[in-house]
């Protein structure tokens, strides 16, 4: 129970259609037993991907995950299955209780699946339900429980086998604020058992209750300096796919090609632009990484705007 979770230079890359995306790119952090770590970030920032990696469901592209001395990235599929059974408890956003099973049977299921006798599984499941305050709902089907009650049962299912690592994916996302508060309080209380509790959320209100917070999408202030004229020679790259998006460009002179770099390194021409046209506005406005590369096909003169300046000076003008 005293093993810490160490994530080092973690990279997860998916091939989507033909191009590669990296929801996690070089992430490192540590989580300590008896503490709650919150993974904070918007949708698409890789929180669930990271939980999948931590839970032994997904193998990262590179980097390392250690739980104590155990290196997850070195385990094969069968060993990962065993790792999940013994070391990880899951709490899901949508509760994900099996509708045909009572609260007690749902909580007992991880134990039954791993070969415990039914009597022992039910004893331990009953104790787990008592612990989360659901001891009086043991025989209820999920359909007869409120969202908050279902999530409590799901938490009991996550801790019934006393795993050293409890992963909770947006555990309050489908709950009203009263139920959400009780679940957060429950997760905080569970720290006492010495587990590492990792909670993913997009809700920054959870940050104050976290012992550690991992920002999944670094939010950097985009400079809003006055528009600047910039020049490129033919063949030069204005920005590359995956780069941080901070500026919007208006073409004053010359032409550019906008190309997508595929996973195999090949390039796909998306469009060509000339004077009077602009590019790079959505990434800069939304804070997403650049989704394509832009290359000057002739000598080029651009005006670079900060996204808010561009919006007020150009789009709304």
């Amino acid at each position, binding site marked *: 129970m005293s093993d810490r979770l160490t994530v080092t230079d973690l990279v997860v890359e998916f091939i989507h259609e033909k191009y590669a995306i990296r929801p996690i790119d070089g992430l490192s952090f540590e989580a300590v037993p008896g503490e709650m770590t919150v993974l904070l970030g918007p949708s698409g920032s890789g929180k669930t991907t990271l939980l*999948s990696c931590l839970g032994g469901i997904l193998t990262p592209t590179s980097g390392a995950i250690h739980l104590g001395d155990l290196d997850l990235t070195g385990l094969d599929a069968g060993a990962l299955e065993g790792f999940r059974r013994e070391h990880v408890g899951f709490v899901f956003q949508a509760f994900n209780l099996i509708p*045909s*099973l009572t609260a007690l049977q749902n909580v007992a299921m991880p134990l039954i699946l791993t070969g415990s006798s039914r009597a022992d599984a039910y004893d331990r499941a009953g104790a787990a339900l008592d612990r989360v305050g659901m001891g009086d709902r043991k025989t209820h089907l999920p359909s007869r429980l409120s969202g908050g009650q279902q999530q409590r049962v799901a938490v009991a299912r996550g801790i019934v086998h006393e795993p050293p690592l409890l992963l909770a994916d947006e555990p309050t996302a489908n709950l009203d604020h009263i139920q959400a508060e009780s679940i957060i309080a429950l997760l905080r209380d569970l720290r006492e058992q010495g587990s590492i509790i990792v909670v993913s959320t997009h809700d920054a209100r959870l940050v104050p209750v976290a012992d550690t917070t991992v920002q999944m999408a670094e939010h950097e202030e985009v400079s809003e300096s006055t528009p600047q004229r910039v020049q490129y020679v033919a063949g030069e790259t204005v920005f590359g796919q995956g780069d941080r998006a901070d500026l919007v460009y208006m073409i004053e002179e010359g032409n550019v090609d906008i190309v997508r770099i595929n996973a195999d390194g090949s390039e796909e021409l998306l469009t060509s632009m000339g004077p009077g046209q602009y590019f790079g506005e959505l990434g800069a406005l939304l804070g997403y990484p650049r989704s394509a590369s832009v290359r000057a096909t002739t000598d080029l003169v651009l005006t670079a705007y900060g996204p808010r300046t561009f919006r007020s000076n150009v789009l709304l003008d």
Partner: protein
Amino acid sequence: MWLLTALDMKYRAIRFVVVTIGTALVFTLLFLMTGLIEQFNQEPFLAVRQVSTDDWAVPEGSSGPFTSSQVLRVDQVGALGAKGSVVVARGTTVIDGVASEGIIIGLGDETFASLPLDAGRPPAGELEAVVDETTGLAIGDEFQLGGSSFSVVGLTTDTTLLAGQPAVFARIFDARSVMFEGSPVTMAVLVEPGTSTDVAGTVVLTADDVAEDLLGPLESAVSSIDLIRILLWVVAAIIIGAVVYLSALERQRDFAVLLAIGGRSRQLAGSLAIQAVFVALLAVGTAAALQAVVAPVFPLKVRVPASSLWQLPTVAIVVALLAASAAMRRVRKTDPAAAFGGPA
């Protein structure tokens, strides 16, 4: 896993009951079709062996006494030293004003002596007949045949031919008189088994050859029923496969969760297989009971072979597993990561 399987079936009980009933109806039809084919296959052997287990001498070129209109010449009949002559004709019997097809078989008295009767006695006088019990006639009833009125003096069972046409046994004189206007025609002559004929223009068939020949006209009917049986198996497979696949689709998230919390994909696929086999066996059991109720009121005699009571469940298990294989494949490919995310 048994717990999960049983509780899921309980949870989706209405669906499983409906599917079991639907599959049971299909299996009932399969039992009946199997029973029909069995009856078609056994019917001529039972009937012919009751008439006589002797060999049958017939005109050369005749396919058999019941399917050919060829007759023996008088001199051939004499030369064969026959144990008894047989006259066969298809005729229309009129019973209480209702006409129906029957097979008229004229026999000599010595042959009648060995004909097993269910009730009554062999014909002793003019225009007396022994009839198959499927005619619905009773001893003492009268019926019309070829313009003459016959009275029933005896009853037989299992003496239908050509898919349920009842045999009407009359003395050979009456049969010739009514069906052939008194001409001394003879379709076959019964001879000692193993006799080889040296009478020109005749051949000897065993009783089984004669029965076998009667299967010929039913060949296309049997093939059609066989085809229907195959289609019924396909329908049963589709019903079972569809419900199990639907169940797998609905439980995709459940399976992902179970995999994430330590379940093994083969355990979950096994759970689906158990459901499919359970539905199939329950349906077979229900069908076995249903066919026992339906068979007696079926228009044609249905003879469900005892072997089908174990063959059908065995095939049903195989079909159920095949039908569930797509669902099992789907489960085996389930990604536990699918447990993450918002409501499904």
